[in-house]
């Protein structure tokens, strides 16, 4: 019997895991994929929202503003990439200014600091590539960008270092209420847990219905994105939003924390919760919408990849975090769509407050290690730092991924650190090897050789990510 079983190793599940790892509890995370960050957490805008969008009083509003405020501190504690680049909501006709004012007012109520409405010319002074049609913009200095993989992986690693066990390749097939505890059946094993946390992303409704009669319905709302070469990364500095609509915040144009240009997402409700495919129509729509925000969109040939993510949209349009009335000690962390990533720093605490009473509100353990050192980004280091690192380990001088300048040392680190990478995508998300402009054309064989050599996996058995995703 474990104390807590968390279903789902996305950013929400990992945030809870990390928070609970501060206490002497036996916590396990079960995840159907072979790694953390394999669902909604891996394919999104990577934005740390300021918190002006959400309806005042909603859980989204409350956690967003708090999460945003805490992101910087957490990024230092856990060593992941975060930049407070500021965001802008633009409008292109005078009628839209009223919407900006409503957003400003809402932001003020939600407690978003420092916002102001500026003229189109002022906006263009800050962002020279902004569309000439922009008449006004809401300037939001607290908006930021983060690497969603790094954030999720950092939370998970730190939880693991502090004793949380992760069970990958375990798909939950049944959860049953056994009175004083829950039985969580996976396709591999059975876990008995006093408390269950349902952080199953787009499938959270399915898990919820296994133990509760209370209604919950999650729709996969697909968003398609196009990612551009780093030579386009300077196009904008702020994250540029358009006026929000019924389906969300619309198509944005943003630099990524690693210096690419990202546009998207579209928003389409789809029946298939596995349909992470892109469509020609969707990509075109994303590009057309983005072209309304900026002058001179980069040429299509400068795109390096496209992807789509599925938002876990709950009918009630808010996060559902809490215990259903009919399932004590079963806590939903559901409907975590945007701004879920922004809330990650505080979702854990929020949930822990609900969990800890079941264990008599224990004190934090003394040997909790709060600090994590990530994989060094060798190409970002100064000459001196790089030389020092190479002196320590010459593998940091051998480039494997030439586009992103990722060294063998970084890949070995990714493999051997806690919750180390076992798959190609695992390496990619931890190091960025293969995320550059050639999209792993050159480094795939070399990276596979390293996985094979270090983990003793024959080349033919190496996976891209899922169980049937053999590279060769």
């Amino acid at each position, binding site marked *: 019997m474990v104390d807590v079983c968390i279903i789902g190793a996305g950013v929400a599940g990992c945030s809870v895991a990390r928070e609970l790892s501060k206490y002497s509890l036996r916590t396990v995370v079960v995840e159907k994929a072979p790694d953390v960050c394999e669902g909604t957490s891996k394919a999104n805008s990577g934005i740390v929202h300021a918190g002006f969008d959400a309806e005042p009083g909603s859980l989204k509003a409350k956690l967003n503003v708090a999460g945003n405020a805490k992101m910087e501190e957490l990024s230092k504690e856990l060593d992941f990439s975060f930049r407070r680049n500021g965001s802008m909501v633009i409008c292109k006709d005078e009628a839209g200014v009223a919407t900006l004012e409503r957003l400003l007012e809402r932001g003020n109520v939600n407690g978003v600091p420092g916002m102001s409405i500026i003229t189109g010319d002022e906006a263009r002074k800050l962002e020279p590539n902004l569309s000439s049609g922009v008449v006004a913009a809401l300037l939001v200095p607290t908006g930021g960008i983060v690497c969603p993989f790094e954030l999720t992986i950092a939370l998970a690693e730190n939880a693991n270092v502090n004793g949380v066990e992760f069970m990958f390749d375990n798909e939950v097939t049944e959860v049953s209420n056994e009175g004083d505890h829950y039985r969580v059946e996976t396709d591999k094993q059975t876990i008995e847990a006093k408390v269950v946390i349902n952080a199953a992303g787009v499938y959270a409704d399915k898990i919820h219905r296994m133990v509760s009669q209370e209604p919950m319905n999650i729709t996969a709302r697909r968003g398609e994105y196009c990612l551009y070469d780093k030579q386009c990364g300077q196009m904008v500095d702020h994250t540029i939003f358009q006026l929000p609509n019924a389906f969300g915040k619309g198509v944005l144009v943003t630099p990524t924390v690693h210096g690419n240009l990202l546009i998207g997402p579209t928003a389409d409700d789809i029946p298939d919760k596995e349909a992470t495919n892109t469509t020609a129509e969707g990509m075109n729509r994303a590009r057309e919408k983005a072209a309304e925000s900026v002058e001179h969109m980069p040429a299509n040939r400068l795109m390096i990849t496209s992807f789509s993510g599925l938002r876990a949209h709950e009918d009630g349009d808010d996060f559902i975090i809490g215990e259903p009335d009919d399932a004590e000690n079963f806590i939903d962390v559901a409907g975590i769509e945007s701004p879920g990533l922004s809330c990650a720093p505080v979702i854990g605490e929020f949930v822990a407050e609900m969990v800890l009473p079941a264990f008599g509100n224990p004190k934090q353990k003394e040997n909790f290690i709060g600090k994590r050192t990530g994989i060094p980004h060798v190409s970002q280091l100064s000459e001196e730092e790089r030389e020092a690192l190479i002196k320590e380990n010459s*593998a940091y*001088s051998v480039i494997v991924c030439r586009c992103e300048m990722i060294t063998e040392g970084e890949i070995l680190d990714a493999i051997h650190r806690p919750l180390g990478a076992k798959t190609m995508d695992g390496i990619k998300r931890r190091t960025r090897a293969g995320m550059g402009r050639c999209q792993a054309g050159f480094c795939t064989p070399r990276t596979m050789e390293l996985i094979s050599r270090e983990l003793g996996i024959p080349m033919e058995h190496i996976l*891209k990510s899922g169980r049937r995703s053999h590279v*060769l």
Partner: protein
Amino acid sequence: MYCRETDVVIIGGGPAGLAAALAVKAAGVESVLILERDTQLGGILNQCIHNGFGLHTFKEELTGPEYAARFIKRVLDEKIEYMLETMVVDLKSDRTVVAMNRKEGLFSIKAGAVVLAMGCRERPRGALGIPGFRPAGIFTAGTAQRFVNVEGIMPGSEVVILGSGDIGLIMARRMTLEGAHVKLVAELMPYSGGLKRNIAQCLNDYNIPLKLSHTVVDIKGKERVEGVTIAEVDERLKPIPGTEEFYPCDTLLLSCGLIPENELSGSAGVALSPVTGGAVVDNTLETSIPGVFACGNVLHVHDLVDYVSEEAENAGRGAAEYVKGQKAGIVPEDDTVMEMKAGKGVRYTVPAKIRPATVKKDVLVRFRVDNNYKDVSIGVFYDGRLERSVKKRTVAPGEMEELRIRKEELDKYPEVKEITIGFVE
């Protein structure tokens, strides 16, 4: 940081870098260093185990590794210095090269001259904007070639190939010989981007269908490729609704164009051509940065390696002359520059500039046409006036063409600003 000085630094130890290094040495400059990022010299030739290399250079038919080996042997015989597993991480406009490897760590080289010979990369799926899932089983043709020929592992068994570039055609044959079933080669354009001989020898001989004006419009399979949907495209290259056909397969190979790998050149400030993706060079193959030369596929994508070697020799000679000139303190008196222009039917020319004062004999100009044509006449125009022309029965975008600009013509028209190569109407 360890710092050294070298007369000529050659970035890249593939066919271009090797030939350039030999030419530098032959021109009497002893201090030359090849920096190669891979574990051996030879570059991409090492995985090109098919034959057809060297017909022009050696008058015999060699495989890629054999062709490379001939140059490597000469480099070793000449005792030319090289470093393997050495990545250049920065190139500055003053020709300081910053590199790193296991032995030296991070180090810098002050170079008298630099020859860029980094080659090219393949256009990936993302740049093509192919919709669908992103499963395992999608490879560029060159990556698949490496798996089959170097690692000895097949990347799949039921194969569709998008793009009819030469590597794609070669891999259609190679995968077939290794027991895979290549169902189809689809090509977006109404013509192939590859050599005619490769279409005959790699597709026709193995009954592999080539569908021109077709492209992949969807990829099925969440974990591994399960199939692709192919559709016909119209004149604007847009898929025609209703022409979709599903091909079950486990592997999709992409051979949709090569891109000169010039990120390093760009960071040094080398001016690049938007058409070739390579540096803008003059007839000595010097780029916009004095003392920095370029050759091979990093300059423009070639069809035959023989031409790469020939071009690289020219770049090596240019680099050697530059170093010698600098050492002797020679400042060229005549700095006249004539611009080369691509005229009707021609996409680009290399070189893009001619400095008549540096021309000893002729200037070999290589270019590519922009479509398939029959019975054309290609002319050399001096400031718009036709000087002479040659007739061609057929020309194709997949094959490089060449013409020579004659020294006597340059002498005859010293005031000319612009030389154009293009079809005569």
